[in-house]
């Protein structure tokens, strides 16, 4: 891996913790030092446990310490998941044998093995969810506690599925553990960067077109569903989006935009701004490996690269995280990528679903108009 200035994305260990901590019924133990523990613990805002190993355990072995911590958290009825960090992963200890007395899910997901998506996928694959062909409803997919929109996305998808009279199956990954054993045969997504691969994927819900397409498939699969209310709301709210964007364009030129986000959210942002604002999407800096895109796209790992791209493409509007916000020079900014520091966020705001698109457009337009007003004042 080449050197990188100010890395922007968390490691695989954090991804594994973000996946497993979402399940009620799992106790997550980070097997590593306090330094490794603090990051996911403060990022995810959920109870995590740690072995907090010190030098002694590296020299003389970590078995006693690991058994001490696992023994303490055992007996609650929860399944225990042990996630290894960098140093324990290369010590060569047979952790599985050490813990054979416990029903433990061992996730070998050290930081050097990849990024957050890799750790999330590995943890979920080890959890091995299964589909129950008789299970009713549709699973909600792509939920990761690292994502600042995860709570809002769940609420919005539950609302839309409810409108269509479709029960909610299992939410990956924010649900009761036992529901991973009886997932529904069908799934819709909120963020394709964290796909579970469970059930037949009916599409995502990022953007009006994607929602329409996914719910038409739901309508085809479920005879008892009634997607008409969803289609009606899609039509009404899209008209509203067109109205406000048209009003904006009567006064202002479309913004030139550079986007920094995971590939899935970035593509949504680009397509939405191009479709409704005729925005010029100048570059997408993807936090992970970019997929197929109609826009100029590349993997951007560090803030140094992001700064260079901002200087090169001189966007009017930047979509990204507060990392990018910290190097902006009086440009409009909308945050869709973690971290989003400098703002208090309490309400569960979605990015997926109809309300997610409305919220995104609303923030982007307000950011552009605020920027124009600031320019006028200057």
């Amino acid at each position, binding site marked *: 891996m080449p*050197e990188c200035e100010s890395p922007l994305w968390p490691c695989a260990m954090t991804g594994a913790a973000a996946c497993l901590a979402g399940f009620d019924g799992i106790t997550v133990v980070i097997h590593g030092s*306090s330094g490794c523990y603090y990051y996911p613990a403060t990022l995810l805002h959920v109870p995590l446990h740690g072995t907090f190993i010190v030098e002694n355990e590296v020299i003389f072995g970590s078995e006693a310490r690991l058994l001490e911590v696992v023994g303490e958290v055992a007996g609650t009825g929860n399944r225990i998941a042990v996630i290894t960090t*960098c140093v324990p992963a290369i010590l060569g200890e047979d952790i599985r044998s050490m813990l054979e007395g416990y029903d433990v899910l061992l996730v070998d997901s050290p930081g050097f093995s990849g990024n957050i998506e890799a750790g999330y996928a590995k943890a979920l694959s080890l959890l091995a969810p299964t589909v129950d062909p008789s299970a009713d409803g549709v699973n909600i997919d792509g939920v990761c506690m690292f994502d600042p929109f995860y709570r809002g996305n769940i609420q919005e998808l539950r609302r839309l599925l409810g409108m269509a009279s479709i029960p909610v199956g299992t939410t990956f990954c924010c649900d009761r553990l036992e529901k991973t054993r009886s997932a529904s045969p069908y799934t819709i997504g909120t963020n394709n960067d964290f796909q579970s691969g469970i059930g037949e994927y009916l599409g995502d819900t990022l953007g009006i077109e994607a929602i329409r397409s996914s719910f038409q498939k739901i309508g085809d699969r479920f005879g008892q569903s009634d997607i008409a209310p969803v289609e009606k709301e899609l039509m009404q709210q899209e008209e509203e989006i067109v109205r406000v964007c048209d009003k904006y364009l009567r006064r202002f030129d479309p913004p030139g935009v550079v986007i920094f986000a995971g590939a899935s959210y970035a593509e949504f942002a680009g397509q939405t701004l191009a479709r409704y604002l005729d925005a010029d999407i100048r570059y997408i800096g993807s936090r992970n490996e970019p997929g197929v895109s109609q826009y100029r796209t590349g993997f951007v790992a560090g803030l140094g690269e992001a700064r260079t791209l901002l200087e090169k493409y001189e966007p009017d509007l930047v979509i990204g995280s507060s990392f990018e916000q910290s190097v902006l020079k009086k440009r409009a900014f909308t945050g869709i990528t973690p971290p989003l520091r400098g703002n208090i966020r309490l309400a569960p705001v979605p990015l997926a679903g109809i309300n997610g698109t409305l919220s995104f457009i609303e923030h982007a337009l307000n950011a552009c108009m605020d920027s124009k007003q600031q320019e006028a004042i200057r």
Partner: protein
Amino acid sequence: MTLSPLPTNLSRAGGCTLTGALSVTPQVRNTVTIIHGPRGCSHHNFSLLHATAFDNDQVAVPALISTGLGETEIIYGGEDALARAISSAADRDFCAIFVLSTCIVDTIGDDVVEVCNREYGMPVIPIPSSGFLGGTFQNGVNNALIAIAAMAEPCTKNAGVNIIGEMNLEYEVEENYREISRLLASLGLPINCRFVHDLPFEGIGSLGAAQLNILRHPALCPVGTYLEQRFGTPFVCSFPLGFEKTLSFMESVAGACGIDGNLAVERERSLQEKIIDDFGDLSGSTATFDPSPVDPESIRVAEEAADVLHINIGQQGTGNLVPANPATGTAGIRRMLHRWRRSLHA
């Protein structure tokens, strides 16, 4: 969770030496810090510095370069990756490069010092910071301060005072500094150098000029001792907490600098009496200290404040919860008392 005691005097929850060192080195302007390890370590710490900067109304975060070790380097060694990263940084417009190691690098046995000692046309300063294998967060802070101090040479003394080892990640870092500055100004003493907080690279050279060093916290005593040996500068071992300790701090500083501080101390005592008077409405209240973890010194200060205000401190559940985490000096107590009033009048 269990934090079982260890045979050595180490704390399991002591944090990471890398984070400690990183709370220091990016505060030297016109320098760059290289973190020799996987990207994740750098991201975790960069994210922390970023969050802290936003909390302190500073938007820009200094550059950190990760050597980006992956599985290949973990297996075959990462020294080449470190040399490449240093060479690349040396081509840029910096005054110096700090190199911090991580626990995984220490485990695989990379010789970081040897790589740093090669010729790059720029000072390259390795700082021992092997994650949890190098000790705790505080060891990282101390190691970084001593490594940077070693770059300075003894020089002619002036009337100024150095502030040593400010806790750059704490929420009230600027407020604590302002309070110390106020106390020193009332004694007629200027600040020579904030070592290290937003310090120009050239400012390191003036470190030895101060007549006195004031340490942020007693855990910095190894740094104070090092500076005393290197520059002959005596030190006061902590910022003051609480009414009485603030007055005795002023007396200690005045004594160490050979000045008469009586007038300044009396003015400060009058200010404290006015504060006590201002919060007289809290007298007779019953409160309980917030049960979140606090150190004994903070409890002492909170008990002192409760005592002078005639606030009854009861057992858990017998009164409103009040925070027992005072900030520096008289102003720190005043801010804590405002929070007490909010709680006691809630």
